[in-house]
C-alpha cells in the first residue's frame, strides 16, 4: 500500500448475500480521501453491511472494493497494513473490561506501540475524558463509553474512520462532543469519515456528501447541499422531508 497518498475507495458492483438473500448491491461508489460521507437510509437498508465491507471485516459476495492499490474480493483478503488504516466506531460501544486507558491504548498495543502515554491522554482530551483515564470502563455511562470508543479509534490515526450510528440514543451534550471531535479529526488530520446514520439532521451538520441507500441499493449520491436542498430522486426528497417511514 502506498502510504504517502491517502487512499480512496472505489466500490465496483459489490454485493453481499446472507443465506441466499441479497442485502446489498452497489454498482458504483467512490469515497474520496479527506471527505465526510454520510450514508443515510432506513434501518435494515444495508448501511452497516456496507461499513463492514469497507472495514474489510467480511468479504463481498461479488464485485470488488479497490483501496490503497489492493482489491478486496470474494476469497481474496487484504494486507494487514491496509486493514489497519481503517477502523470502526460501532453504535454500541464494546469496551474491554479494563481501565479507560487500557481501552484507548488497545489499538496502539496491537501495533506494538507501548510508549503511548501522551497519545492516549491527547485522544481522551479530545473527547473530554482526560480525567477518567484510570477509571474502570464498566463504570462509564453510555455517552462516556461511546466517547472512549471514539478516542480508541482516533488514537491509532486511521486514514478512514467508519462511524455506525455513533450518537444513537445519546443525550445532546454527548452528541455535541462526538460531532465536534469527528469534525476536528477530519479538518485537522484529514481523516476520511464515513458516517452511517438515519438522522438526517446529523448528516446535514457533518457531511460533505450524502448517499441514500434503500433496500441495499444506492438511490442518490450528491454533495450535502444538493442532497438536502435540491434532491433529484423523489425518494430522496421524501426521506429528507421525513416522510419515509422507518
Amino acid at each position, binding site marked *: 500500500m502506498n502510504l504517502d497518498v491517502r487512499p480512496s475507495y472505489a466500490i465496483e458492483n459489490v454485493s453481499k448475500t446472507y443465506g441466499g438473500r441479497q442485502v446489498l448491491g452497489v454498482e458504483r461508489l467512490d469515497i474520496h480521501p479527506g471527505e465526510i460521507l454520510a450514508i443515510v437510509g432506513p434501518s435494515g437498508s444495508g448501511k452497516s453491511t456496507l461499513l463492514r465491507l469497507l472495514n474489510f*471485516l467480511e468479504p463481498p459476495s461479488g464485485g470488488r472494493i479497490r483501496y490503497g492499490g489492493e482489491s478486496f474480493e470474494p476469497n481474496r483478503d487484504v494486507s494487514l497494513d491496509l486493514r*489497519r488504516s481503517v477502523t470502526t466506531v460501532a453504535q454500541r460501544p464494546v469496551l474491554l473490561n479494563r481501565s479507560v486507558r487500557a481501552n484507548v491504548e488497545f489499538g496502539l498495543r496491537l*501495533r506494538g506501540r507501548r510508549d503511548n502515554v501522551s497519545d492516549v491522554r491527547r485522544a481522551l482530551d479530545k473527547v473530554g475524558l482526560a480525567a477518567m483515564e484510570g477509571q474502570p470502563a464498566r463504570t462509564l455511562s453510555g455517552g462516556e463509553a461511546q466517547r472512549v470508543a471514539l478516542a480508541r479509534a482516533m488514537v491509532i490515526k486511521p486514514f478512514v474512520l467508519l462511524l455506525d450510528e455513533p450518537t444513537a440514543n445519546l443525550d445532546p451534550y454527548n452528541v455535541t462532543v462526538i460531532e465536534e471531535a469527528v469534525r476536528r479529526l477530519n479538518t485537522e488530520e484529514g481523516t476520511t469519515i464515513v458516517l452511517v446514520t438515519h438522522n438526517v439532521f446529523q448528516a446535514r451538520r457533518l457531511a460533505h456528501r450524502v448517499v441514500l441507500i434503500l433496500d441495499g441499493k444506492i438511490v442518490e449520491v450528491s454533495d450535502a447541499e444538493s442532497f438536502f436542498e435540491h434532491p433529484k430522486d423523489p425518494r430522496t426528497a421524501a426521506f429528507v422531508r421525513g416522510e419515509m417511514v422507518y
Partner: protein
Amino acid sequence: MLDAFNLIFEGSSSLYEIVLLSLRVSGIALLLSTLVGIPLGAVLGLGRFPGRQLMVAFMYTGMGFPPVVIGLFVYLLLSRSGPLGQIDASWIPDLFTPGAMVIAQSIIAFPLVAGFTMAAVLGVDPGLRQQVRSLGATDWQTTLAVLLEARIGVIVSIIAGFGGIISEVGAVMLVGGNIEGRTRVLTTAIVLETRQGNFDLALALGAILLAITFVINVLMLRLQGKALNE
C-alpha cells in the same frame, strides 16, 4: 487428631517426598492440560467448523469421565503389550513411574480446562471480536483479546482442572502403583495408611492435601480478584 498434627509438624523425609511428588505430578499435569485445554477451549468457543459439535460432546463426556477408567486406558496403553508400551522411545514413560501418572492426570484435567474455557469464551460479548478486529487485530491477537476478556472464567477452568487431579486417587493408583519412594502421592498414601489402620497418619496426610488445595485456590482467587476489581 493431636497425633496427626504432631506428625505434620515433626515432619519426615518420606512425608516431604510424598508431598513434593504430589505437587510435581499434579503441577506438570495441570501445566500440560492448560497448554492444550485453553487453546482447544478457545477454538471450540470461537470457531465454527464441521465436527465442532461432536468435539464438544466428546469434551463434555471427558469432563465427567471416571478417573479410574482413564487410569485403566493409560495402563493398557503403557503396559508392555500395549500400543505405546511396545515402542522403545525415551519420551514414553513406563508404567509405575511419575511420568505415567502425569499422563493420566493430564488426560483427566484437560477436558475440564477446555470445557470451562470454552464456556468462558462463549460468555464474552460477540461484538467484541468484531470490534477488536476492526482496531487492527490479527486472528491470533483477536483470540488472545477474547481470552483475556474471559480471564475470570479461564482461571476457574484452571482451578477446576487442578481440583480434579490433586484429589484424584483411582488413576494414579492404577498407573503409579503406589510404590514407596517412587510413585506414592498424598491420595494413594491416605488409602494405604487407612487400610493399615494408621488413621493418625492418614488424617495428617488428608490435612496436608486440604491445605495445599486451599493455598492454591487462594492464589487463584487473588489472581481472579485482580481481574474482578479492574
